[in-house]
């Protein structure tokens, strides 16, 4: 998973029908270089202090996002806010286990998010399958399908653990250590192959622009 040569061929979009294909973009995701040191530092500060979470509770982990968003834990204090549309969101909290059907939607949502984007793997299920390790319908390892920045273990992690996770993510962003978007671009073919292996009816564009 190191820096491979970027493959610049056009995407085939094979899952789409003939007449739909021209409607969708066939360009690959590109990796981005940081701007000048101090500029980037400032921008990273802003990114870290304004994390917009995609309001897609993909699993039971979403249950602990609710208290976090509401008065008891009030995540707005730390610049976190839920966003109902992936276009505007910057953090994708994967709420635990992911069924294949959800994974397909998650991939699409993730690709619709604009960089820099971060993924938090919430709960044990994202690490090694968790309690659904032997289920026929849930994936075991999230990092095979999406680049994950932070894992928070727990079942479910409490809101405090989530807060600590966000704090850690902020530190990483400020230090410029989060590179999910570029990693996805660099290893795009690998991720796509993994995704397509388990999403059986791939009827969407290869990369959603």
């Amino acid at each position, binding site marked *: 998973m190191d820096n491979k040569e970027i493959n610049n061929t056009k995407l085939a979009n094979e899952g789409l029908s003939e007449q739909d294909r021209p409607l969708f973009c066939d360009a690959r995701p590109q990796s*981005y270089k940081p701007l000048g040191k101090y500029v980037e530092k400032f921008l990273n500060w802003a990114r870290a202090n304004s994390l917009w979470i995609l309001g897609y509770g993909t699993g039971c982990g979403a249950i602990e996002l609710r208290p976090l968003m509401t008065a008891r834990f009030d995540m707005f204090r730390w610049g976190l806010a839920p966003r109902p549309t992936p276009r*505007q969101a910057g953090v994708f909290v994967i709420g635990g286990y992911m069924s294949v059907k959800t994974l397909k939607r998650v991939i699409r949502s993730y690709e619709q998010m*604009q960089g820099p984007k971060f993924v938090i793997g919430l709960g044990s299920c994202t690490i090694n399958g968790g309690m659904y390790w032997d289920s026929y319908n849930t994936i075991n390892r999230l990092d095979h399908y999406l680049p994950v920045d932070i894992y928070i273990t727990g079942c479910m992690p409490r809101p405090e653990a989530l807060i600590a996770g966000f704090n850690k993510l902020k530190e990483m962003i400020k230090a410029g250590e989060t590179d999910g978007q570029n990693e996805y671009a660099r290893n795009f073919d690998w991720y796509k192959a993994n995704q397509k292996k388990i999403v059986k009816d791939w009827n969407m564009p290869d990369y959603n622009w």
Partner: protein
Amino acid sequence: MEHGLFISIIYAFISLSVATIWGLLLGGIALKVVARAHGRFGPPVWQPIIDIIKNNARRTSISHGIMYFLGPVFRIAGGMGTFLFIPFIFGSSVFGNFSFAGDLFLVMYFIFFGQLGMALGAGESGHPYSAIGVARGLSQMTAFELPFALSVISLVIQYGTLNITSIVAAQQGGLLSWTLFTNPLATIAALISLQGMNMHNPFSIVIAPQEIPIGPPTEYHSNFLGLLQTNRGLFNIAKLALFMNLYFGGATNIAVMILKTFLLYMLTIFIGASFPRFRTEQSIRFFLGVPTVIGILAVIVIAYL
């Protein structure tokens, strides 16, 4: 306009910046105030500013076409247009902006302009939610424009001028000369419209995250969204400044301006946190009901009594 063009532009720029920053801070304050009603603390007041920086710092953005790109541009043009023809602070050369004889008309037009541009842009994003949102937004806007327009007509008749500066000037000389007291019906009609204009509850269905996420800005992101948010700060202030000028005697210095816009804004927040949303047709029915009647009464009262 006794300055040269260059100086005017610099003044306008300063005025715009101050207004935008104040608008954004006001938004932040509003979030904090609402948070208290929710029983929590809320984000820092400068959070909207960080959000804008963040949105502009996004590395990628996608354009769905020219109109999509122009949407936010129209929007901010609308915001700037609205603001720049409203005297921000009465009598100030820096914040006086480009008030001229017929500016009230122009401002009314600009309030529409941004929304229409936005509608076109959002329409091109191709998202069905945007389309539904645009439909909701435009129909609701038409509805709340009616009482507001009636109220303005009433004012125009009352003061006999289309110049905002003149209207402000006419209200100087004590609390009781404010339109609020000289023409309360028009003020009430306008304030109700303001609630709709600010898109706070119960008129927030256009950008509601529950009733379909989230309306016209569904597809807007990165710097487009940054532009929209900047405009939200600016446009807010523009509207508040307009209302302050038309109904609450304008402002002669920054402190008064801050106080009056703050209080006006808090009024909408106060209502907003207490109510759920109207559905589109419910809000249209609402605006075309009592507020319109009040507006008509305001015109009649001023014109015939």
